[in-house]
């Protein structure tokens, strides 16, 4: 890699660091900026029932008696060690709580992203190839509908139809409670629980990719080299697969990146509807319990994940587009 590429990454890196810094600063500032005692946000609403001595103790425990800049340094130092503080609802370390939830979300979101991108790209390319056909218009209509529908509502409908109505699939959690399963049975059980949330999340993620692929495919199809390939007598399927689609997929990678934040949002509501034990559901539980430290920790982790995914996408992009590599 030459220096231009490194400069590109340095610029991006600085930007991601800034986002991270902002998130941390926001998390630090929010409980201290709100009206009333910051203790309510850091230690729970029961604080009101404590006597003066206990309050002073708690105050010292959270370092609130120290100057702001010292509090901030301590806060950042704790974060750097992976300490996110304690949930005042459960009294457990937040890092451990998130750690339990993260694999489920990664499974759900990761699978959904892969399926949605593949499906969206394939359908989008086909739709553009048969521009104006019934297939094209039908796909467009369905895509636009799912793009506009609220994700949590789609989930509720799927539950009503496939879960409660037909009784085909479980609608709650990620595993059947109280059963010791092993091997194949375990896998089937997990897959059955995953099916509906995965379907919901995928349904709302396909349209974005589909619309962009179709759009980019249409402009690629107008290029000279497509006409050249056809004139050379390349078979239509090969023109579609090897000449057109390959080049049309570049913007898809960009959208993939832009979508990551959106996917995180979708996951939050979808996990809530299905009581899927992921990070998004944790965020919701924290809102319900007004468990502010958990809320902040979860938000921080989601931001970090999105940044990490962005970086991964940045690194993959040059592999896809030789022009970026050369520049």
């Amino acid at each position, binding site marked *: 890699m030459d220096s231009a590429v490194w400069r590109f990454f340095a610029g991006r890196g600085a930007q991601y660091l800034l986002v991270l810094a902002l998130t941390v600063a926001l998390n630090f500032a929010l409980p201290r900026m709100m009206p009333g005692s910051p203790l309510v946000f850091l230690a729970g609403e029961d604080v009101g029932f404590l006597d003066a001595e206990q309050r002073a103790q708690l105050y010292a425990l959270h370092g609130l008696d120290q100057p702001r800049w010292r509090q901030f340094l301590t806060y950042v130092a704790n974060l750097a060690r992976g300490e996110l503080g304690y949930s005042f609802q459960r009294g457990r370390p937040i890092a451990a709580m998130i750690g339990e939830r993260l694999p489920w979300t990664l499974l759900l979101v990761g699978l959904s992203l892969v399926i949605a991108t593949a499906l969206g790209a394939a359908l989008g390319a086909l739709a553009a190839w048969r521009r104006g056909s019934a297939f094209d218009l039908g796909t467009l209509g369905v895509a636009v509908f799912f793009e506009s529908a609220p994700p*949590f509502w789609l989930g509720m409908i799927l539950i009503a139809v496939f879960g409660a109505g037909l009784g085909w699939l479980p609608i709650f959690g990620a595993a059947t409670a109280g059963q010791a399963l092993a091997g194949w049975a375990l896998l089937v059980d997990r897959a059955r629980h995953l099916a509906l949330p995965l379907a919901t999340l995928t349904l709302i993620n396909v349209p974005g990719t589909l619309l962009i692929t179709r759009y980019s495919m249409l402009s690629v199809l107008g290029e000279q080299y497509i006409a050249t390939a056809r004139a050379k007598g390349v078979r239509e399927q090969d023109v579609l697969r090897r000449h057109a689609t390959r080049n049309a997929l570049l913007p898809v990678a960009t959208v993939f990146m832009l979508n990551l934040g959106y996917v995180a949002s979708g996951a939050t509501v979808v996990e809530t509807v299905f009581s899927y034990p992921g990070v998004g559901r944790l965020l919701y539980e924290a809102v319900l319990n007004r468990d502010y430290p958990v809320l902040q920790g979860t938000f921080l982790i989601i931001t970090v994940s999105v940044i990490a995914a962005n970086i991964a996408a940045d690194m993959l992009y040059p592999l896809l587009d030789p022009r970026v590599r050369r520049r």
Partner: protein
Amino acid sequence: MLLLGALALAATLAPLVSPYDPEQTVADPFLPPSREHLLGTNDVGQDILSELIYGARISLTVGSLAAALAVGIGTTVGVVAGFSGGWTDVVLMRIVDLVLVIPFLPLVILLAAYLGPSYWNIIIVIGVLAWARPARVTRSQVLQVRSLDYVEAARAMGARPVRVMARHVLPAVLPLAMAQFIVAASNAILIEASLAFLGLGDPTAKSWGTVLYYAQVRNAFLSGAWVWWVLPPGLLITAATLGFALTGLSLEERLNPRVRRARAS
């Protein structure tokens, strides 16, 4: 457009067209649809159809106001960045990129949880966070307008930059801002619905999202009740989002220089 018109009309005329007061218990709870209650009743015996008609007011108002705020900020930033160029432009666009990276809904949830449930808070939070995209689109338009003859002429005659921006550049980007507003409104409606669904809505006034929230809390989808309790509000949200999005896209197609160029090639 027709879709939007119908929804807006229903929202404006809510007291006239809705058969019951949405806040009043008018019948037994959990009634299936009947001639008196076209969409049945909810868990406390309120008429669901009336709830939805009044909900249109909240949903559409929150969506529009939040979008107006977002586009207001976005257009200002876009005009200043595009017109000034240089460092101002670089810094402002960096901030735009930054805002675009942050996961939107989780941040909105965090802020809404701290600020407490009220529609004003939701409007402000969405507005303050959703301006990045309009800012970017506006800037690209301003870059085109900036080099037009009449703008150059105004500058050459010694008009102050602020005046040139306000008198000559702003009018040129206003139609585009209108399109952006509509796109932003469709997003804002979805986000408001999500927030209300997560229980972060204003408890004193029901939006479509709030209706779904209660349906979820009362497990409406486990019984046959989902057909008239869950399906209609979701379809309304979809219709409103779709209506805004399609109107916005067709406007943008006509006005946005980048889309137009991509079409031409």
